[in-house]
């Protein structure tokens, strides 16, 4: 892929730990993961747990800082698989998209494999997804910044305080 940054193997793999790439895969739109999957060499794998749908109860804290309480469930799809080379890939992704869960688990397993082989093909895809996530976040924050408001109080005479 032309837009995949080419990084030295060590840097690429140092950029994301397993929880970080699992988080990223869960937050990346399935179509984007699919786009990378299309050009990757296909691994062989077996299912340990086929994609299945359930929920997770989301918790909050009173006032954001205090004791915990249950807010409500989110739908979650999860699966577990094993590459023929032995690595076990796991995914838990919000929503009901089984393909999203399957690809996330495959990427999880392939990234573990790459860590031992030193390759950077899948890792490069992760770097591209990370870049895209940063861009999405920046877009939201740019929108937010555009509506920054400075309230000023007027004294009875009308002068600003």
């Amino acid at each position, binding site marked *: 892929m032309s837009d995949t940054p080419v990084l030295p193997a060590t840097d690429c793999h140092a950029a994301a730990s397993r929880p970080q790439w699992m988080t990223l895969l869960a937050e990346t739109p399935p179509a984007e993961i699919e786009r990378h999957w299309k050009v990757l060499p296909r691994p062989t794998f077996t299912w*340990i*747990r086929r994609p299945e749908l359930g929920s997770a109860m989301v918790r909050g804290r009173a006032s954001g800082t205090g004791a915990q309480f249950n807010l409500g469930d989110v739908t979650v799809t999860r699966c*577990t698989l*094993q590459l023929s080379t032995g690595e076990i890939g796991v995914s838990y992704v919000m929503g009901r998209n089984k393909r999203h869960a399957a690809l996330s688990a495959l990427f999880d397993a392939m990234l573990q494999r790459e860590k031992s082989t030193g390759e950077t093909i899948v890792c490069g895809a992760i770097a591209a997804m990370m870049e895209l996530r940063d861009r999405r976040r920046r877009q939201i924050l740019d929108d937010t910044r555009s509506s920054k408001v400075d309230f000023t109080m007027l004294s009875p005479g009308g002068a600003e305080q």
Partner: protein
Amino acid sequence: MNASVISTQFADPIHDAQQAFRGLLAATSRPGTIVTIPLPIASPAPLSPTLAAIGLTLLDDATPVWLDPILIQEPIRQYLLFNTGARVVTQPDSAAFAFFAKARNLPDFRVFPRGTPSYPDRSATLVVQVPLLAGGRPVSLRGPGIESVVSVEPAGLPDGFWDRWNENAANYPIGIDMILADACSIMSLPRTVKASF
């Protein structure tokens, strides 16, 4: 995580679990009847396939499970967590289910939750492995779901078991329920059943 441990589910997880549930329901509504249920392809020893089948069918994340000293092993804990979501607890009084590899390990039933008069359902079910559901000392069972009397002879129960059982039954509606299992079948003893011998 070890794939060989966690991949030993039912061959057909949904339908086998449904059939096993139907079997457990039949056994409980007709106490003393021996019912065969589908078994998983394999199970982490020393958890027998029958106990594993009962676990896969009845456990979920809302049913804390207690394991006897033989069963309390890391691969079994992982197996139950992965396949059912059930957490293993060390305090018997917080268990919804308790699994025993040997009936001889059965402690005083009162260490497990037995419910309250308002909530008799907040009680534990004990799942107990026996060598065979036949060939032991014959006992007559009476109670709801039994037309008049049924004779059973599960082997491997400790001395005084049926006296303790009757004590449990005498406290109805408070009490524990029990499922006995051998290599391929189960028999259910709800707390409504009284034994004479």
